[in-house]
């Protein structure tokens, strides 16, 4: 089964070496097309003017921050259920990328909010739940950093990721409830029944470009993490070779 073949890190690294240039090329091409379309082809909005172009960065980033958490959830299941050796590498590599996309969604959203709503921050239901998601990403990254044994840290982070995956729908639901109870309807909504194709196509291309960007970054980060763990185990072996036996450890002064 192909899934298990790549449990071997060396084989995985060879696969990454083959796939990565193609994927990176595809990513650059999609970004070239997508950015051209969103800046020059897509029309201005009749109300929002040029600021509507923020959408082509903002919406894919918001999609990606959800997709990244899904990848981490599946990886955590891989860690806890199947004990796949690369699963916790994948989860650890995905967390900073997800945090970055979430941050990008928040920043572009607030830059878009200033001309549209007149304020950088609105306690809108979506913004609030994305902010909570951002805090969860940062908490997971901190948990990874506080434990020096990568295997134990991987298991702890996997438990927290799964609990978070269970809780995210509840958080989303409760924030929606809280928002409708405390505030009138949001200022912003799409006019018209559907998005016009002139806007939809650049958006879809940009979404694909962001998704390939995620996979490029994810594979690179996984490769780096595998190499980092090799360096760590080599160092541990060198350290134990330099100080053989428990007697030396008991008397470090000698």
């Amino acid at each position, binding site marked *: 089964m192909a899934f298990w073949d790549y449990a071997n890190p060396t084989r995985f690294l060879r696969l990454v070496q083959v796939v990565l240039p193609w994927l990176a090329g595809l990513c650059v091409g999609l970004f070239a097309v997508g950015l051209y379309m969103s800046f020059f082809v897509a029309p201005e909005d009749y109300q929002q003017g040029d600021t509507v172009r923020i959408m082509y960065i903002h919406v894919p980033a918001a999609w990606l921050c959800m997709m990244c958490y899904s990848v981490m959830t599946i990886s955590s299941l891989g860690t806890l259920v199947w004990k796949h050796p690369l699963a916790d590498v994948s989860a650890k590599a995905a967390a900073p990328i997800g945090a970055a996309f979430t941050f990008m969604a928040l920043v572009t959203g607030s830059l878009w909010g200033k001309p549209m709503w007149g304020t950088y921050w609105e306690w809108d239901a979506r913004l609030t739940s994305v902010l909570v998601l951002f805090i969860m990403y940062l908490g997971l990254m901190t948990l990874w950093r*506080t434990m020096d044994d990568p295997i134990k840290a991987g298991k702890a982070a996997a438990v*927290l990721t799964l609990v978070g995956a269970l809780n995210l729908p509840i958080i989303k639901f409760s924030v929606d409830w809280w928002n409708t*109870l405390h505030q009138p309807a949001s200022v912003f909504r799409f006019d018209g029944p559907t998005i016009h194709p002139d806007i939809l196509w650049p958006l879809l291309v940009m979404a694909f470009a962001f998704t390939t960007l995620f996979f490029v970054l994810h594979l690179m980060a996984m490769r780096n993490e595998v190499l980092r763990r090799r360096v760590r185990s080599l160092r541990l072996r060198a350290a134990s070779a330099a100080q053989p036996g428990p007697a030396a450890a008991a008397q470090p002064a000698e």
Partner: protein
Amino acid sequence: MRNWALVLFQRDLQLSVRIGGSALVGVLFFLAVVTVIPFGIGPDLNLLSRIGPGLLWIGALLATLLGLDRLFQADRDDGTLDLILMAGRPLEVVVLIKCLAHWVGTGLPLVVAAPFLGILLNLDPVATAAVTATLFAGTPALTLIGAIGASLTVTLRRGGLLLAILVIPLAVPTLIFGVSATDAAVRDPVPFMTPFLILCALSLIAAVVGPIASAAALRFASD
């Protein structure tokens, strides 16, 4: 109830209320938080009575977070946790009993103190009753969700701050429904029972998810 469960419950409760335990420190912290808030926002009684339920909920959340690191830390330090893990009892049930004892030692005093602190915040009787009822229904959820964070950070030397960061996002729904149930009782935008029943449901969900996840984390931390 089986004998060992009762013994474990009594042991945890006694340890938390006697000298060396920290059960009543939480209530003092709650009092200190509620006392310091009028210095921050001014002594306007109308404003205080309007935001009072939210203040009490935030104070209870902070006081609960403060006490959570004691849930497993002391038992790990003196080796009791390893004995519990090796005893062969279902660890999920053990965690549930420990959470229950911890809640009786730290959460229940907060609920009892809430009506008295409500006087300081100029709450009317309806709002006081609603806050007390929602805290009674909601603080178990905070303790049970917090148990996940406590077991994840049990191996760390100074896990208290990280614990708070990990637990706060998960505690957002409880806070929202606790405060909105109180709002519903006072200003009546929706019937009181709707958010209150959701709050009870959140506590029941936490009673399932919390012990399972926490037991898994404790097993991984020990081996």
